[in-house]
């Protein structure tokens, strides 16, 4: 009898669970999975999306692997992602720790100022920094020249050796507040006693950070790092508005490469192939990360 009631309860739970989650499930299947599969299918076709749908099989995949041009975009994406996430993490960890310091004055005000970049749209940030980087009238060159760091104005965004770094700087500026806010919340959960104990044991600031702070924020830090990597890997808007992938292709990351292949050159099938390739890379990275995490635990 008891078992039967439990069984009935389970059915009830099932039905209610499905009822409440069905709209989300509907969205996921129809609006996420369906287009995704559609995208994979297109990658096997030579198509203009209107009247030409020629099945070409693995032709584009072979070309992708043999012909090296896409690897260059991939490499630039790795550089962009690595340094952007690194820069964001350094600033986020630094400022989050400073903002929880015991005797720091005006904490709320400082936090409000530091999160500000997050509240400007990507496009706006791109346009603003394009103006700041402007060779003749930009603030950036003016400051550097006033300080005597450069003699002549530098064309930060149209010089192929500086463009990528200029773009990364902007991405760091725009993105560090998110991680900082997450870490701030995580830091507030670390017990004060731990710090005091560490201090009594004679640990300096650096050792306290290493043995108390870092383990305390690790779960949040690793989750946000993973999110950041995935976001940076597919980032488009800032780079597009700063350089459109140029000069030549110095800042052409995969998202811009894929966009151009489709909507500038109208090679939709080949563009889809590249998107699928990136998708596979991200899956592999995630699986690797999960495995490494399991090993750590």
């Amino acid at each position, binding site marked *: 009898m008891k078992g039967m009631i439990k069984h009935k309860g389970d059915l009830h739970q099932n039905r209610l*669970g499905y009822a409440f*989650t069905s709209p989300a499930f509907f969205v996921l299947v129809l609006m996420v999975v369906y287009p995704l599969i559609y995208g994979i299918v297109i990658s096997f076709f030579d198509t203009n999306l209107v009247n030409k749908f020629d099945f070409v099989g693995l032709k584009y995949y072979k070309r992708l692997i043999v012909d090296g041009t896409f690897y260059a975009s991939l490499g630039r994406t790795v550089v962009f992602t690595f340094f952007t996430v690194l820069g964001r993490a350094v600033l986020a960890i630094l400022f989050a720790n400073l903002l929880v310091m015991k005797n*720091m004055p005006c904490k709320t005000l400082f936090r409000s100022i530091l999160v500000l970049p997050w509240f400007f*749209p990507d496009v706006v940030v791109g*346009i603003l920094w394009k103006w700041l980087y402007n060779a003749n*009238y930009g603030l950036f060159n003016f400051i550097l020249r006033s300080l005597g760091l450069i003699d002549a104005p530098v064309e930060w965004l149209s010089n192929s050796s500086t463009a990528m770094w200029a773009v990364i700087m902007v991405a760091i500026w725009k993105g560090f507040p998110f991680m900082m806010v*997450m870490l701030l919340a995580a830091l507030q959960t670390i017990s004060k006693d731990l710090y005091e104990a560490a201090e009594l044991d004679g640990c300096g600031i650096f050792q306290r950070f290493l043995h108390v702070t870092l383990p305390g924020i690790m779960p949040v830090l690793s989750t946000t790092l993973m999110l950041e990597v995935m976001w940076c890997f597919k980032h488009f808007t800032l780079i597009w508005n700063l350089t459109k992938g140029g000069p030549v292709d110095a800042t052409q990351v995969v998202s811009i490469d894929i966009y151009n292949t*489709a909507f500038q050159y109208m090679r939709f099938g080949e563009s889809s192939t590249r998107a699928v390739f990136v998708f596979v890379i991200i899956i592999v990275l995630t699986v690797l990360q999960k495995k490494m995490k399991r090993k750590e635990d």
Partner: protein
Amino acid sequence: MGQRKKFPVAGFILVILGCLMVLVPVYWMIITSFKPAPETFRNPPTLWPESFTLDAYRKVITDYSFGDFFGNSVIVVVGSTLLTILVATMAGFGASRFRFKGKGAFLGFVLVTQMFPSVIMLIPYFRILKLYGLINTHLGLIIVYISFQVPLCTWLMYSYFETIPKDLDSAAAIDGLNNWGIFRKIALPLSLPGIASTSIYAFINSWNEFQFAMVLTTTEDMKTVSVGIGQMIDDTMINWNDMMAASILASIPLILVFLFCQNLFFEGLTAGGVKQ
């Protein structure tokens, strides 16, 4: 112990430097927008406008379809955010309160969708919306934005419901409320802060979105703010003071969020993430 009461000089200087790093570009945007066009082409630049003018704002609003851009963004972003929150709140509640077959798979899948590079869906959406006559329409963009926001918002709402004690549900059930009643009268009011911050999150992301709006709108009168000002910069008639004025106008909704809902937003956003 005496050492700890000391004012953190080095830390304070670093924070001030950080604030300058953030504020100087923002300051530059604001003062440039108030300068007359010739003054923006001064070398060395003027650090404070010699003559204040609203010309740039006037030009952006009257000479360009900025009003249209803004209106389109409001319709698309508000529409998609409302629908997203409805769907995500229900799903978050369902996943947090009921044991059902496939629940783990459902939640796992919600997170997995975050890995999809959105660009893989650019061509499919372009083609699908074209097929159903939804390209260059508000509804088309709303559909796309819902698909972007539902997964993470579902996850945020699920995390938030998990922080609300389940005893309240049982108490309400004893009082004779059915499950829909519990959802409406107990869970929903208690989760309002979570709903608010999730809505703000979806709102910010949709207001920011650029790439899909660029591909999926084809005429000037359907462009969103992001796309509109992103293309304004290619116009040879436009000056930097105009661009900065347009940038400030485009940021207004997010700045309002920053001014009035910042704390609410951060509390809700971090509540689920930290307490897990």
